[in-house]
């Protein structure tokens, strides 16, 4: 839509609509000020530390783990759709001769003007940023951050490489690699619900932490082998004042890794096709 379409009566209409929405939202938020109901959140706060040391992860991956699974899917689908629009997986009907899709070419990156000294420092920066992303995902059970953040940091490393080095990106992710890790990440996240589902019938039940199997009405006991597999590798020693308290985040660190892979795969793939384009013949060669 061009700006000139907004001149005249349409523009007036749009402005009036925006004004109404603006007033409505403002009035609503003013009314809400001081009247916000707390609802269920005190209950979550009371339980969060039993779940794991990082409350944010407790929320995102444990209370609402399935919710985040689908959110992750939005990123995955975003990547698949963006890449499809550029050219990966366009389909034609066998019987119908339609117009051929327009071939997409890569962006014309002019990197000749980048300072050589600056370039010298960019390679270490890219490597260290990628390592920083990995540090974030390994510490996700205990400190702020997690899969999304890791993915975004690594993707920014990739983008910096593309901006400064053009086609000779040091972090030279291949298309198949990105599609593979994106898919692996989402599949890992989805399938981590399977152990809990098989034992209790609840998908994404955190078999490593297991808070609820002592409550009446819970369908099953968690076998100790599942505790060991999903709880112990990431068992943490939380030293509290009264003594030592051992805690584990269960499947949450693993979910974080799946999430990170998915986000890296998806976002880097979007960058890749928007910068370098997509061509099936190139893909076949690689």
């Amino acid at each position: 839509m061009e700006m000139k379409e907004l001149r005249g009566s349409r523009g007036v209409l749009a402005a009036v609509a925006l004004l109404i929405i603006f007033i409505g939202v403002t009035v609503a938020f003013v009314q809400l000020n001081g009247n916000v109901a707390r609802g269920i959140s005190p209950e979550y706060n009371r339980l969060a530390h039993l779940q794991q040391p990082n409350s944010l992860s407790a929320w995102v991956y444990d209370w609402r783990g399935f919710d985040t699974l689908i959110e992750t899917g939005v990123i995955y689908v975003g990547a698949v759709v963006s890449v499809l629009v550029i050219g990966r997986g366009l389909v034609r009907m066998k019987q119908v001769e339609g117009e051929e899709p327009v071939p997409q070419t890569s962006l014309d990156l002019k990197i000749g003007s980048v300072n050589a000294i600056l370039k010298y420092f960019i390679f270490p920066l890219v490597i260290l940023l990628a390592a920083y992303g990995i540090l974030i995902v390994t510490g996700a059970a205990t400190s702020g951050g997690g899969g999304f953040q890791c993915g975004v940091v690594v993707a920014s490393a990739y983008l910096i490489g593309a901006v400064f080095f053009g086609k000779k990106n040091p972090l030279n992710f291949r298309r198949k690699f990105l599609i593979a890790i994106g898919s692996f990440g989402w599949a890992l996240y989805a399938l981590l619900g399977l152990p809990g589902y098989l034992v209790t019938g609840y998908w994404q039940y955190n078999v490593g932490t297991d808070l609820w199997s002592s409550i009446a009405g819970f369908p099953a006991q968690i076998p100790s082998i599942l505790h060991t597999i999903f709880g112990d590798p990431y068992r943490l020693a939380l030293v509290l004042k009264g003594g030592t308290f051992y805690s584990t985040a269960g499947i949450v660190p693993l979910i974080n890794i799946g999430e990170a892979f998915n986000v890296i795969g998806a976002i880097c793939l979007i960058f890749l096709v928007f910068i370098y384009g997509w061509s099936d013949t190139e893909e076949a060669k690689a």
Partner: protein
Amino acid sequence: MSAVATNLWTIPLFVIIPIITAILLNLLYNKSRTIKVIAIASSIVLFVLALISPYGFQWFTGQPGVTPGGTYTFDASIFSYRLSLEYYFGGLQQILITIMSLLLVFVVFLSASSLRKNIGPYIALIFLLFMSSAIIIMVNDFYHLWIGVEMGSLLLAGVVAASGESISQKAALKYTFFSALSGAGMAIALAMILGVTGYSNITNAIQYIMSDNLSSLSGVLYIAFGFFVLSWIYAGGLAPIHPLKSDVYGSAFPHATVMLQTQSKLMIVAMGLIILRLFGTLPFAREVMLSVSVLTMIMGVTMALIQTDLRWTLAYLVVAHSGLVTLGISLGTVQGITGGLFQAVNDIVYMSVLLICCEAVMYFGKGTSIKTVGGIAKRAPWLALAVVIGAFAASGVPPFNGFQSEIILIQASLSSGLPEVAAIVLMVSVTTFIALFKPIYNIFLKPDNSPIAMEGDAGAGIATMAMVQPTSPVPKSIYLFLAILIAIIIVLGVYPQLALGFVQDTAIKVVYFPWVP
């Protein structure tokens, strides 16, 4: 109420099986044979699951409910605040998901056999489309509903853009722009509802709104309602943004439109019921919804009348008939809601028949415009019969299913004291008939007078005779699918109680116990 399962085993599978299938298909990319086998097997599994599933809840991640006394419970029949994300699978969900998975089998088969080049990502998107619709119809949580809607509009754009033609890419892009408004509008509505109630679970939020005196916050509720309706309009393609949605339907492959219109009906139903449950007591709420529905119907059929291409006629009719569904829901009575939900079921089925016929017409290689094709009935008489039955069902002719739901809608509007609405429903039926019979007459019944056919007629040799009557390019599988769908149309038309049994329960709950999912 007896104790209901809170860990119903089928619910996660409706989401996880499509996800895993989609990931696999996306990876397989151009291995058409493997893709076809996996996709069809997985869609058949989904259909069987939907058919045999019992009813119940799934409390994802296994977090219990908190009773007002502070104890924890895993019993859904006890009043509790849910810590977990909640899905519900009941009669309405069963009939809609069963029909959708049946259509998924057909659509996957059709797309795997009629498309060439790298079909993996495309069929993966169709599976995810199924998943997002299943989520929207089962979920009992605001945030998750929002994610389902967001994902649904993204997937829709992908499926439409996959043909790579400029018209479909334009339609997809336009729709993506505007459906962003749907997501954003819903997010604002959710922020306000969460601020007022503090619960993202729909049941808990409704209970809070009904039990507490919220008169000081009624302004917030009105704004939330406004944004929710805005989101409903954008997600379902109702008036006044119906041209965007019809562009999408018309420029996608017809088999994809089968899934797209199903998804859109499910969104309309799910979101409409939630609006009604949450804001049904607000004055003007139903009137606003009713006027949107009436506008959608009138504009949809009017636009359908002036089209000269079967694909586009159907695109506008799908939108117009969405208006019939929302009309029933916005009447807000048990009869009205029952009629609306039944209409949704019927609509999905008869529109699918028409769209699959449209796809079959495309196999003749001359497009679907009334100017380019003709005389199909001579070459494929059964196809002509199917399209005529589909058209009769869509225009509410007995003994087909459209008649049964439209008569309920008319009765419901009359008993709500709205005879003018009943008249509009009648008008929609009649206009649908007229709009459909123009392309059907031209494409199927009128003799083909295009230059190539004339040339063939002029030839006299045996070899040219064979060219005059070439074998029909329509594969047998399409006739099988059409036969199954037409059987459903006739069964529901003769014995509507079969479907009514599934939807009536939901209608009663929405009217009398709105907090129950």
